[in-house]
């Protein structure tokens, strides 16, 4: 079929199968890739375009319906060449785009509204944006950007030396709001072959492959385990337990078994049942109890007892100290598998360039990918080049390999570019999850409410493969007592293999699960002693000078008490308002809760260095070479801010080269909230190094003022100005490396696991419909000690996005293999679920960090669920022991409580 229509104001023609989805036609045939595909099922709204002026999901529109109609995409918003529309400018100025994958869909949904009403109310904005999911922002800045579209905020353009601390717009923001940023599926060569992966429908089974020759004759290749040079990978150098393609047995539903490689239409047309696989399903191990049962079968033959790892922290004598406590609280708390639900499914392409393999894919960790691929391919690391695409959200889920191994294997042997784009169900089934946890906690305090003893045991379901399980099992015992000074501590963590999906890294590495337990204990002890819950925490907060349970004395930057003090007026106001509301009676009851956390920045007791470079070319081009991947959090922007001030030149003069393992040095992975602290410090040192070189060339003192014009660098030192002609002086390159100082933990968990810690306290106000069991979060106030906010807008964005994920963890998110493998059964918060989030930034400077900065990515999420659950208790009296707190679970708990009272 051939048809004509209007695309972004211009006549367009298209030819193809009429049942083709509009989204695919736009992206694959018409070359407008600003429209993103997140689910192909109308569940996420990323592909939203305007059809005859109304928003639709372009993944649900048949091209056969487009003849004569008008289609508008993000590319059509611009008012002239490179001229952003007011809506795009407002998104940029407000920091409404983080990773940017939902941004085109959000913009188009908003465009339908602002065309009708340029001054919409908040509820109108929510109604129009309700069908577009965002996993990064928590929606607040998006809603503000739409409401303020006619009242632009003035742009911030700090002078040289004033970049740190200012709210500059994202350096990669214009590309994101203009739909030009290229994600994993956006720049696949037209001649690429495609891979489709056949995955296990069983959680545990043995299988045999039949005759694959008929398929091989139809396709370019059919890959099996035998085609993988070294068929094992994993995060840890000594645990390569996950096969790229399963060899004879599968350990979780969704595990890759066979890869079909061929022309795209051909591999899509092959039905799963055309691939000859004979399955012998076995009863799967589901959950820790099954894994630890007597005579439980082994998930991995060399892991007795299905145990991955155990360990803990011991200080003082917790058992004895409980006897002397005036009050003791205890409880057990359980959490579910949680899906990252980044809106960009895993995607990328690869090709062979001579004797090297080059992989363009969405990732959080280019250098780890490089080394893993080299190991799988039996190549030298230098033979692998990772070119990260823009990353449409990660949250830990793109730290593990996904599309890369099959791309590398296929492209290496076939001599053509090869692409692989996961479908949404595939992404959800195949990728890692947050560890389900069972945390048993016991805390005791004296009559004054001073914590004296704590005993916490956390059991984790690490699923079929190790992934980041050891990281979780190591990190949790260090954090499980909470951000409090407690003299007698015993914490313990164990992780077990099951036939669940591999549990890996997810924003917080197990600490959010543990925080639900320790914060419930704080509430119980405070209530028991009739001490205000905030004041109880304030009394026990770790402060500078205190020694932690691992024996580390916190010399600086322990700002929990300041966070709590900042919350105090909000806490008091909310208590009064809630008391007044509840006095009116009715089925809706309000409550307030508080959650505190601390979070060690960077790897636990392990080296995690970053190296950054700042170059000044003979032509006068100033470039930051940053291996730190921006997955939406804003590291591209803050690295430039930090480097700019360190050099002493303005941000606008910087170019940025990021991620490519051929062009940038290893800045570690984007995880553990480490990029600001570790890579930021390296960027600062690199900038300082370049500045020193310049000052030496100019023979100038440390306070000299630099200015760069073309290839001429001027150095003003007092009254004297010296100029350097870069064309003759040659290129300059500053370099900086930082590895946070830590020490290994001994058998009792004693040592210095982290160089610094972030601290935070959040309060949540909720309204519970006690008849329905529903919880509406009305307001969050989040106080975070970030050391120094390099860019307050970006820090707020991280907090608001983390809060939204914490809200999902508390109230709605539960991944059930085979049951919630899509974004309509697996629920993440929509714009209507996330309340106003007020951010209070506490800046208790960390001397080790760049300009005193620490980290914010994970800390943002950790306190939210505890605060919400505490508020539910305050409203209803129900102590929640299992999340997500789905409406039926809360209603059942309310009924049980009422029954016990009567």
């Amino acid at each position, binding site marked *: *079929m051939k048809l004509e229509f209007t695309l972004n104001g211009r006549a367009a023609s298209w030819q193809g*199968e*009429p*049942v083709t989805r509009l989204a695919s036609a736009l992206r694959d045939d018409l070359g407008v890739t600003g429209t993103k595909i997140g*689910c*192909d*099922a*109308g*569940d996420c*709204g990323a592909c*939203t375009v305007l*059809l005859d002026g*109304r*928003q*639709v*999901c372009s993944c*649900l*529109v*048949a091209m*056969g*319906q487009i003849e004569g109609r008008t289609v508008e995409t993000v590319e059509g918003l611009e008012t002239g060449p490179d001229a952003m529309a007011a809506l795009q400018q407002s998104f940029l100025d407000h920091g409404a785009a983080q990773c940017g994958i939902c941004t085109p869909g959000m913009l188009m*949904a908003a465009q*339908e509204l602002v065309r009708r009403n340029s001054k919409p109310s908040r509820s109108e904005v*929510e*109604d*129009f944006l*309700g*069908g*577009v*999911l965002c996993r990064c922002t928590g929606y607040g800045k998006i809603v503000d950007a739409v409401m303020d579209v006619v009242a632009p905020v003035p742009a911030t353009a700090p002078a040289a030396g004033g970049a740190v601390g200012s709210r500059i717009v994202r350096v990669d923001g214009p590309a994101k709001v203009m739909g030009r940023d290229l994600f994993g599926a956006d720049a696949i060569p037209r001649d690429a072959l495609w891979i*489709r992966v056949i995955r296990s429908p069983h959680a545990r089974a043995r299988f045999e492959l039949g005759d694959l020759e008929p398929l091989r004759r139809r396709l370019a290749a059919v890959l099996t385990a035998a085609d993988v040079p070294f068929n094992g990978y994993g995060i840890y150098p000594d645990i390569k337990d996950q096969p790229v393609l399963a060899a004879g047995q599968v350990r979780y539903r969704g595990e890759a078994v066979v890869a079909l490689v061929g022309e795209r*239409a051909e591999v*899509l*047309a092959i*039905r799963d049942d055309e691939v000859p696989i004979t399955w012998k399903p076995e009863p799967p191990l589901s959950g820790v109890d099954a894994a630890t049962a007597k005579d439980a079968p082994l998930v991995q033959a060399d892991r007795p007892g299905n145990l991955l790892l155990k360990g803990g922290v011991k200080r003082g004598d917790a058992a004895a100290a409980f006897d002397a406590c005036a009050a003791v609280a205890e409880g057990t708390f359980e959490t579910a598998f949680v899906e990252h639900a980044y809106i960009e499914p895993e995607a990328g392409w690869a090709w062979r360039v001579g004797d090297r393999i080059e992989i363009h894919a969405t990732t959080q960790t280019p250098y780890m990918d490089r080394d893993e691929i080299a190991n799988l391919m039996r190549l030298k690391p230098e033979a692998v080049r990772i070119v990260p695409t823009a990353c449409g959200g990660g949250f830990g889920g793109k730290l593990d390999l996904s599309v890369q191994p099959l791309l590398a294997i296929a492209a290496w042997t076939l001599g053509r570019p090869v692409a692989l784009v996961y*479908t*949404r*169900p*595939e992404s959800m089934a195949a990728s890692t999850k947050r560890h389900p946890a069972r945390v048993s906690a016991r805390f005791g305090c004296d009559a004054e409410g001073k914590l004296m003893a704590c005993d916490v045991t956390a059991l984790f379901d690490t699923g079929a493969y190790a992934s980041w399980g050891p990281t979780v099992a190591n990190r949790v015992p260090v954090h499980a007592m909470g951000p409090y000074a407690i003299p007698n501590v015993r914490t313990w963590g164990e992780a077990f293999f099951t036939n669940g999906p591999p549990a890996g890294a997810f924003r917080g590495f197990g600490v959010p699960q543990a925080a639900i337990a320790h914060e419930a204990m704080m509430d119980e002890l405070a209530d028991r002693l009739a001490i205000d819950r905030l004041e109880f925490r304030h009394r026990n907060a770790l402060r500078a000078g205190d020694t932690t349970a691992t024996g580390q004395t916190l010399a600086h930057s322990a700002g929990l008490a300041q966070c709590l003090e900042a919350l105090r007026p909000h806490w008091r106001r909310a208590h009064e308002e809630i008391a007044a509301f509840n006095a009116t009676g009715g089925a809706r009851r309000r409550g307030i809760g508080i959650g505190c956390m601390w979070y060690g920045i960077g790897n636990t007791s392990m080296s995690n260095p970053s190296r950054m470079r700042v170059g000044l070319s003979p032509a006068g081009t100033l470039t930051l070479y940053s291996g730190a991947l921006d997955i939406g959090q804003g590291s591209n922007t803050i690295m430039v801010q930090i480097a700019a001030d360190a050099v002493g030149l303005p941000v606008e003069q910087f170019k940025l080269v990021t991620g490519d393992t051929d062009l940038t040095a290893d800045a570690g992975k984007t995880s553990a909230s480490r990029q600001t602290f570790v890579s930021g410090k390296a960027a600062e040192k690199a900038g300082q190094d370049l500045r020193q070189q310049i000052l030496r060339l100019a023979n100038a003192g440390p306070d000299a003022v630099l200015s760069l014009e073309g290839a001429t660098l001027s150095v003003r030192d007092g009254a004297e100005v010296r100029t350097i002609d870069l064309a003759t002086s040659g290129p300059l390159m500053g370099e900086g490396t930082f590895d946070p100082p830590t020490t290994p933990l001994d058998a009792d968990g004693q040592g210095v696991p982290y160089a610094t810690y972030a601290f935070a306290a959040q309060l949540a106000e909720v309204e519970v419909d006690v*008849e*329905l*069991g*529903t919880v509406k979060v009305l307001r969050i106030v989040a106080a975070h000690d970030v050391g120094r906010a390099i860019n307050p807008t970006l820090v707020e964005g991280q907090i608001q996005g983390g809060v939204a994920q914490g809200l999902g963890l508390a109230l709605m998110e539960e991944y*059930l293999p085979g*049951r*919630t493998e*899509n974004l*309509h*059964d697996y*629920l993440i*918060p*929509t*714009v*209507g*679920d996330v309340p106003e989030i007020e951010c209070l930034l506490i800046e208790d400077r960390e001397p080790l960090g760049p300009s005193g900065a620490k980290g914010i990515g994970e800390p943002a999420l950790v306190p939210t669920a505890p605060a919400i659950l505490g508020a539910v208790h305050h409203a209803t009296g129900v102590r929640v022991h299992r999340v997500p707190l*789905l*409406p*039926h679970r809360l*209603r*059942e708990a309310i009924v049980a409580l009422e029954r016990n009272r009567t």
Partner: protein
Amino acid sequence: MGDYLRPRGLEEALQALTRPFTVLAGGTDFYPARVGRAVVEDVLDIAGIPALRGISETSAGWRLGATTTWSELVEADLPPMFDGLKQAAREVGGRQIQNAGTIAGNICNASPAADGVPALLALDAEVELACCDGSRRLPLASFITGVRTTARQPGELVVALHVPRSRAEARSAFLKLGARRYLVISIAMASTLVEVEDGKVKAARVAVGACSPVAQRLPALEQALVGATVDAHLGERVAPSHLAPLSPIDDVRGSAGYRSEVALVLLRRLLSKVAT
């Protein structure tokens, strides 16, 4: 790849249906069922047939064309008896789905959680089916026969829904319970239409969705409401025994017991809402 027909006239569509086709209109159920695989079946796209679209008033009531979208319904000038259906329309998916999804698609997809069905039951809607040999009408309650099954025969197309005029002042309302604000599959929902005369209920229709394989009218409750004063206490007439037609199940969204309980709560609130 199969055939793709996009007729402009109803006759042409009905002629085509003498052999098997998958009917496509708004696409909001068609494409989600085909994620990551090629579309191989023959498709009959009825969205381009003007006769199937739009709302018109007839002597007996209103005709809702099969491919009328939820947004078109919301924006249509309709009497208050349609308020419940309009409220339901605003709860179907997100606005993108409301702009594309069609009324007939919702009933033909026959999900137990179809948001449009309780309100259409409360409106006493009839389904008009046409085929080459003629047409027939049947009540919506007879049209949807089970989970994802309907009385539509091969060769038949749903061309419209018909809503009869009410005999007295009619008010209606809809309530939905889901685990998040937007884009959510209902845990339970309820809709009602109450005819009011002299401040009393003259007649009432009440339906509950997502608590049985097919949304159900509650005749005992409807009887119990007749003669009641239309005020904020109307909801107090609801009794657990009225829920007998429901058969809720346990699933990831809620337990059976919970569904029964909240159906009762929703009904009480719904009736208080419609009365005030």
